[in-house]
């Protein structure tokens, strides 16, 4: 099986030559037609009719304690109820993405809303009614819900997405001696992914073989997690997830609904459908951690950073070591001889914290990029100029080279387009009626990741190609990108390509997460196609490099043969695998960008309205200008939500996530978002992957919220360091004279 280890840069490839002209083009979404007609089947919609049973989850009414008893008698005797599943072995919530399987309750309650039982009935309504009849008796203990209170007890976690501590030089001394210093602390609240499709699963057994339709991002891992939770071998489990109504990290680990559906389907011998309610999605899947971040920057009077420190505290459940890699960007974004980046993890009796869109950067860059803005003001420097003066030419952590880095170009391009030169450095310099107007910017960076990924590509005798991989499309555009890649490599128009995804019976891919999907899965298709091209070249009796494939024809020298003829009734198939290699270890790889934002702050009410926003993004080769732009837009709106509205509120009396629905957990509505503008710099980074692209899906959110809050400061002189910057915090700052410095 052809495997490519990414040890060094490839030279020019068929993707550069672009014989078919597909790569980079703003092509429509492969599955768009199915989605706009409502015909794309999501997990819950795969089984109907007689024999199907419906499960409704029962959750814990307290946050911490012991389950004394669960009275299921009334539920059992309710009409239509078939079974009530209880027990110490039920999953409490989603699995940690890197975990073996979901945690189990073991008779204890670890957080408010933990899964305790599943009521199964002939109809959804009967199951729901049955669930309302289950009563739970618990011994309640006092819980810990406040990160600030638990901060003194926080511990050094084991290495995760990054080491907990990275240091260079003597930070404390350099900071103490710095000519100009900034020392500020920022706070961000817990957040929810809030994908539009609630988690759902339909499980069915045939003999010892389990088939589960569910909504998940990492099919291979999720299959193993589900098998482990059930105590069976992974080859007994097949997961299907062709269409996924959004993930954002919330569907990285297998969800409790899939495990419960599989467990109970086996017991009752019927297919079982389980969907979490919207409230349960908030309560029993995962969240992004709350954070406390102390940022210290020391610089010379002319704005050279000599010391940069980013110490952070975040939370998770007891026994879970995952920590948000908050300082991921601080490690490499700006120069400075003396550096200190630390992560501490506190235990809370609150739902598991896990990865959400751009884990690390999404919240870490709020603090870093606010601090850079604050420091620029202290130095009397334009924020862009301050950043330029601290542009490193190598990774300041270890002096390794960058694979590619275009941050300054992004900032300059954005400044020109946005009209940055018209910005008044002094806050509160522009007013229109009741509205104070300001603009702000922030840098963006997202560490580039690559993951092992395999795909099979088949050339059918009729000259059509089929791409087969367990890769997922969570709205990102995987179907489209993989079709474009195969089409470009094999010289086939889009309508001759079929892409089958999201099936654990297919070759295992990277899955979707960490912005690594397009490069990883795309490369596997590239590698498989290269193998097919070798074989086609042999048939053409030429070297592969002399073979051009275009519009379903093979061309070598002065010979031109239709593919169908060349295949002569034979199907060709190859599986390609990409493995990350030394290119990642020897170089620092990241995507870069710059966000620009204009806000209006109402002097009467403290309301903030985003008026304009532009992001300039650089992520190596742009594979599809439309899907790339869409990804950036999605990231930017997450950034607006992070800055202004999104916050999981925890009741400090009982640990309840109070705003566990879409009415009160405020994802931005369209009126909160102006027409967003995205500029993509099309580059190539051959060290990143054979695709020469870097991760893009999370670049749009990284730093975006800081551009919004920096603009708020510029508008009204109020610096909100406790996210989100809601109207009460802004008005309080205005009332305290924050705007009249």
């Amino acid at each position, binding site marked *: 099986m052809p495997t490519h280890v990414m040890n060094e840069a490839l030279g020019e490839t068929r993707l550069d030559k672009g014989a078919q002209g597909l790569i980079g083009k703003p092509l429509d979404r492969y599955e768009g037609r199915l989605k706009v007609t409502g015909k794309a089947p999501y997990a819950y919609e795969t089984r109907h009719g007689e024999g199907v049973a419906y499960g409704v989850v029962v959750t814990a009414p307290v946050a911490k304690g012991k389950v004394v008893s669960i009275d299921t008698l009334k539920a059992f005797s309710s009409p239509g109820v078939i079974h009530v599943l209880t027990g110490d072995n039920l999953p409490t919530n989603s699995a940690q993405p890197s975990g073996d399987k979901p945690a189990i309750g073991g008779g204890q309650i670890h957080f408010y809303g933990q899964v305790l039982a599943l009521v199964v009935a002939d109809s959804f309504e009967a199951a*729901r009614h049955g669930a309302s009849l289950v009563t739970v008796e618990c011994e309640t203990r006092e819980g810990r819900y406040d990160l600030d209170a638990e901060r003194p007890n926080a511990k050094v976690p084991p290495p995760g997405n990054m080491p907990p501590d990275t240091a260079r030089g003597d930070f404390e001394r350099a900071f103490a001696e710095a000519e100009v210093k900034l020392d500020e602390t920022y706070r961000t609240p817990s957040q929810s992914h809030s994908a539009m499709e609630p988690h759902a699963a339909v499980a069915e057994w045939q003999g010892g073989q389990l088939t589960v339709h569910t909504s998940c991002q990492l099919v291979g891992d999720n299959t193993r997690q589900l098998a482990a939770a059930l105590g069976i071998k992974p080859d007994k489990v097949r997961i299907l997830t062709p269409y996924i109504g959004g993930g954002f990290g919330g569907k990285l680990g297998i969800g409790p609904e899939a495990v419960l559906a599989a467990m109970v389907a086996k017991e009752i011998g019927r297919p079982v459908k389980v969907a979490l309610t919207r409230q349960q999605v908030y309560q029993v899947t995962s969240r992004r951690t709350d954070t406390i971040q102390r940022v210290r920057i020391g610089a010379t009077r002319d704005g050279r950073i000599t010391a940069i420190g980013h110490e952070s505290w975040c939370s998770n459940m007891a026994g879970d070591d995952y920590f948000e890699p908050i300082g991921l960007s601080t490690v490499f974004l700006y120069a400075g001889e003396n550096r200190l980046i630390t992560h501490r993890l506190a235990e809370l009796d609150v739902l598991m914290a896990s990865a959400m869109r751009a884990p690390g950067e999404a919240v870490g860059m709020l603090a870093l990029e606010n601090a850079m803005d604050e420091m620029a003001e202290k130095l009397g420097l334009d924020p862009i100029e301050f950043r330029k003066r601290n542009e490193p030419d190598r990774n300041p952590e270890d002096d390794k080279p960058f694979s590619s880095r275009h941050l300054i170009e992004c900032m300059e391009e954005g400044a020109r387009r946005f009209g940055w030169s018209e910005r008044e450095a002094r806050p509160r310099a522009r007013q229109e009626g009741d509205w104070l107007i300001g603009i702000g910017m922030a840098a963006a960076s997202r560490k580039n990741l690559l993951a092992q990924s395999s795909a099979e590509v088949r050339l059918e005798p009729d000259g059509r190609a089929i791409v087969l991989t367990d890769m997922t499309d969570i709205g990102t555009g995987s179907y489209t990108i993989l079709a474009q890649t195969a089409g470009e490599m094999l010289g086939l128009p889009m309508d001759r390509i079929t892409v089958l995804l999201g099936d654990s019976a297919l070759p295992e891919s990277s899955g979707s997460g960490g912005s690594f999907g397009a490069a990883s899965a795309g490369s596997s298709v590239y590698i498989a196609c290269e193998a097919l091209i070798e074989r086609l070249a042999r048939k053409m009796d030429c070297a592969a490099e002399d073979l051009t494939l275009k519009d379903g024809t093979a061309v070598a020298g002065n010979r031109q043969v239709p593919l169908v003829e060349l295949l002569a009734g034979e199907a060709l198939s190859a599986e390609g695998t990409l493995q990350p290699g030394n290119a990642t270890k020897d170089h620092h790889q990241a995507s870069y960008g710059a966000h620009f934002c204009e806000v209006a702050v109402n002097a009467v009410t403290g309301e903030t309205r985003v008026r304009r926003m532009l992001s300039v993004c650089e992520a190596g080769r742009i594979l599809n200008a439309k899907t790339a732009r869409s990804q950036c837009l999605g990231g930017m709106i997450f950034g607006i939500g992070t800055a202004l509205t999104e916050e999981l*509120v925890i009741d400090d009396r009982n640990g309840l996530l109070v705003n566990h629905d879409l*009415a009160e957990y405020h994802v931005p509505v369209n009126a909160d978002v102006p027409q967003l503008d995205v500029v993509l710099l099309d580059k190539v980074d051959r060290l990143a992957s054979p695709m020469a692209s870097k991760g893009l899906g999370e670049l749009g959110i990284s730093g975006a919220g800081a551009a919004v809050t920096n603009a708020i400061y510029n508008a009204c002189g109020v610096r909100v360091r406790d996210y989100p910057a809601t109207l009460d915090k802004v008005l309080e700052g205005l009332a305290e004279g924050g705007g009249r410095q």
Partner: protein
Amino acid sequence: MAEPIRFILNGEERAIAGLAPTTTILAYLRQHAGLPGTKEGCAEGDCGACTVLLAEPDGVGGLRRRAVNACIQFIPSLHGRAIETVEYLGRGGLHPLQAAMVENHASQCGFCTPGFVMQLYGAWLTGALTDRQSVKDVIAGNLCRCTGYGPIVDAGLDLAARPVPDTRAEDAALAERLVALLGGEMFHYEAAGGAWCAPRHADELADLYASRPDARLVAGATDVGLWVTKQHRDLPVLIDVSRVEDLRHIEAGPGRIYIGAAVTHREAASHLAEVHRDLGEMMRRFAGYQIRNAGTVGGNIANGSPIGDLPPALIALGARLHLRKGETARSVPLEDFFIAYGRQDRAPGEFVAAVEVPTLEDNQRYFAHKVSKRFDSDISAVMAAFLLTFEDGVVSEVRLAFGGMAATPKRAAAAEAALVGQPFDAAAADRAAAALAEDFAPLTDMRASSAYRLKVAENLIRRFEMELRDNPPARVSLAREFA
């Protein structure tokens, strides 16, 4: 006599019997009708993924269409109506809107997409799509977590540029079929231990409710729907007031508007906007479009929420509430209807019939503003509405009403007292603002802090004063400006 629910689904006549009256339209579509294109994102009317198009005879031979959230509408509300889902729209190939959604990349994960499609399509058919602002307004109740909305707005604009087809002939034919389905009697549906009645006249309603005061009245189901989907409450007897003809009238007479209790927010909005532009702006930001298409003026008042937006706006105008029980009708000043948290001045078997809203006199000045964290589809942190009457340059009468400041919608008596008999100048506004602390001790909750609520209430009084000066600062409506 109980009968099946008769309606037209995607052009075909259907009948439902045996399903509980509190089965939602969404559950019916997805589980029973084999139409899973309509999505469930929240089951409480917050996200719009379940948007479907309802049509009913308009009484003059045509159809009245409106998009609603199928997730909180109960199946008996389908009786005598036609429903269209996303599957029907694409029956003859992609509709131009669907093509525009693909072309503009207005669908990423795709889960919200059918809701946006039906919402935009419905708005276009009813002539509501004109410019960018109108597109943004009609999708206020649809959430998307992927696209940043811009591509969806662009797709909506592509549709807005197309002429609306003339469907009068088909509409008339469909209306005729629907009238036949509706039958001549009061609709009465029973199944699975639940009952639903839909009286046609106020007299019928009065008789029915007097005999069954334990019944729950339901109109748009924008609140009652959640009692079922979220609180899992049993509602054995429901009386649907939304078909009561005399509760659906709006009468704009001299000096007042009489709004029937079953008038939807959408129907009332244009009339309220004529009273004052602030009311129009508030109604534009009131919940989302689908909720305004279903929820009623009477419902927003009668459920007695301390954070409903209409009560403070109407209390400030001096509205009166008309109630009826059996043969007995009475009316009360709207503010007197709200007694305490969760308690209203409504006897068992008594129902809200209408609200009577005085229009402004030449010597009156009005101000209303909804303050919320999110621009649309959000519960107010504070809702403020003020009315001043002037005589000889002096405030002769004042009504300052607030929502979100107390357990009920409430007037600010101390602040009002500080204004009466004085010119309304900056000093007077300051005195009234200071007096608010005597009137209110608002809660701190996740919508806003107590200090904020008090502060913003003070600021809004001061802002009103500034607006009445000779050269008032511009009060920009931002959603319009930034669209």
